[in-house]
């Protein structure tokens, strides 16, 4: 069990440190790379808990899709990040004060666990994964017991899709678009016009 806690604290330290680097490094590309580091390390923590499916999903979705998208945005858009970060120092004291308050309050909670109150939660160790894989476990409940929540999540994603289209789609005038259906239905009659040319007059 000792080696387990050593591994946990090691990776937990890396997560916290890289998260701090995400918000403090000057170069936005470095920030994104630190973000990827913290995702990967969180995935490792999931593996040590025996939740390998969650770990893989974290890497596939967050590192594979989200972080790469961030990298694209950072590289494609010419945003002056130094200007955005202006005023950071003036907000720093009050931000530090508030976060210090929150941290002390949280520490107080976990230190002053009231021993007089009856214990209502069974804090167990790891769940038993020996009989079947946790991928199968998640699949079993996701589409049965958690069906309701699964469907709501689907609707949320649909709304996000509609929203991004509504807010960004612009029809610009003067842009030539290929209309394949129109091209397919072209016949000789619509393209070739027979005209009788009067003598010495021509046609316009």
């Amino acid at each position, binding site marked *: 069990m000792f080696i387990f806690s050593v591994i946990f604290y090691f990776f937990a330290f890396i997560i916290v440190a890289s998260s701090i680097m995400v918000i403090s490094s000057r170069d936005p590309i470095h920030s994104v790379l630190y973000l990827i580091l913290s995702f990967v390390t969180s995935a490792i923590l999931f593996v040590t808990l025996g939740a390998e499916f969650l770990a893989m999903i974290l890497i596939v979705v967050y590192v594979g899709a989200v972080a790469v998208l961030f990298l694209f945005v950072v590289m494609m858009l010419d945003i002056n990040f130094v200007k955005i970060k202006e005023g950071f120092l003036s907000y720093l004291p009050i931000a530090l004060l508030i976060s210090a308050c929150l941290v002390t*309050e*949280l520490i*107080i*909670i*976990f230190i*002053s*666990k*009231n021993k007089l*109150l*009856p214990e*209502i*939660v*069974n804090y167990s160790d790891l769940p038993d994964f020996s009989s079947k894989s946790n991928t199968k476990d998640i699949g079993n409940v996701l589409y049965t*017991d*958690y*069906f*309701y*929540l699964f469907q*709501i*999540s689907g*609707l*949320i994603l*649909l*709304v*996000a899709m*509609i*929203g991004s*289209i*509504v*807010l960004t789609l612009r029809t610009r005038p003067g842009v030539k678009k290929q209309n394949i259906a129109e091209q397919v239905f072209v016949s000789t009659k619509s393209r070739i016009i027979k005209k009788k040319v009067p003598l010495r007059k021509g046609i316009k």
Partner: protein
Amino acid sequence: MPYINSIMFLPELILTIGTLFILTVSTFLKNISFKFSFNASILLLVFSLYSVTFDIDTNLFNYDNFFDNGAFIDFIKILILFGTLVFFLFSEEYFYDLNLDKFEIPILILFSVLGMMIMISCNNLISMYLGIELQSLSLYILASINKKSIKSTEAGLKYFILGALSSGILLYGCSLIYGFTGALNFQEIELKLSVLPQLDLGLIFGLVFIIVSLAFKVSAVPFHMWTPDVYEGSPTPITAFFAIVTKIVAVGLLIRFLILPFGQFVDDWSQIIIFLSISSMILGALAAMTQNNINRLLAYSSIGHIGYMLIGLATGAETGIRGIIIYLCIYLFMNAAVFTILLSIKINGKYIENIKSFAGLSKKYPIISFIISIMMFSMAGIPPFAGFFSKFYIFISALESKLVFLAIIGVLSSVVAAFYYIRIVKIIYFDDGLDNFEVILNFRRKLIIFISTIFIAFFIIAPSYIIDTAQELSKTIF
């Protein structure tokens, strides 16, 4: 059993399938897509409003207790659907005027209504979170739907960033409650808590976090910063939707969340609610005085109204909840009338933004001016009108629960707030202004104004129906 399960959320089911159908069809319609989706949405809302009423009234829990059902929930659903119907009836011309006739607007409204119905019927911390997200994600988009106006974009962005922050706080609170009780289900949390003589510090912390996040949704005072900016920036019908419908559902959820799992620890949370209530009432009364923009004024007025409703919640008693239910009904009708009139008056082809432009309205349109004054007197809580009764029942509950100082502050701040409501009446009747008003009232708008005015002005004649209903509903929560 599956049959029962699906009939229990029939309104949600009808709304989901109908919305997806409208979305699919209107993608293929070119020029009439907005007209189609708008009118189909009205039809759909009427259908689901009808289906709420024949909902089986039992307390079975469905889909692994993610979902609850009952008289109070049905009542809030009816209010939501009714408020949305009102929105659809008065807003169509506005969207045409501003070239905002996108068929996505009705669809996003319907999705947010669906989210609200999930929110109010939730019985589990996860479904609560997902309902809130579905509702607010649609609202962020609607707030910034007018891409041509910088203020609208700003409103959407502000709402989005602060909303994301409040979601984070909500999730943190949920995780603390889950960590200290080991349960996500409302009944299960209540059961686990019933053995505790007092709340653990961690549980109090989680409770405070969730209250903070819900206070953000109802825009109670320390968490109200976004309200005036978002109300000002968004297109006016969307503002009306924020003011009327989202407030109702957030108050309903706050009641359910606090009374159901944490009902036995009223003393722990009522002090937070008392603080929120006092500060909302005072700020709602004072800050609105200096506002000249009508939307900002209505934002502060809604903050004040929330303060009064929270008095009823702070009592944690049946009479308090009865007061809130009466208040919500009357609030819906008052705001419906005010926003409908606001959207019907134009000056030189532009919608009114500054309250000083109301000057001289009474000479050309005496009836409309008279109705505005009725609504303003009602909002201020002046006796013959319904607004007086909403405050009256709230203050009675405060006195019964020995929260005398809350009632006193409430009365004092409503006296102060009466200043800015009556100032509008004064501008309409006594100030000299231009004579180029144009009031466009079609049948739909006339209907809303007529019904609300009848309700507000003649509530005094037969108040017992609403009060008795509220009495019965408040019993079902406890």
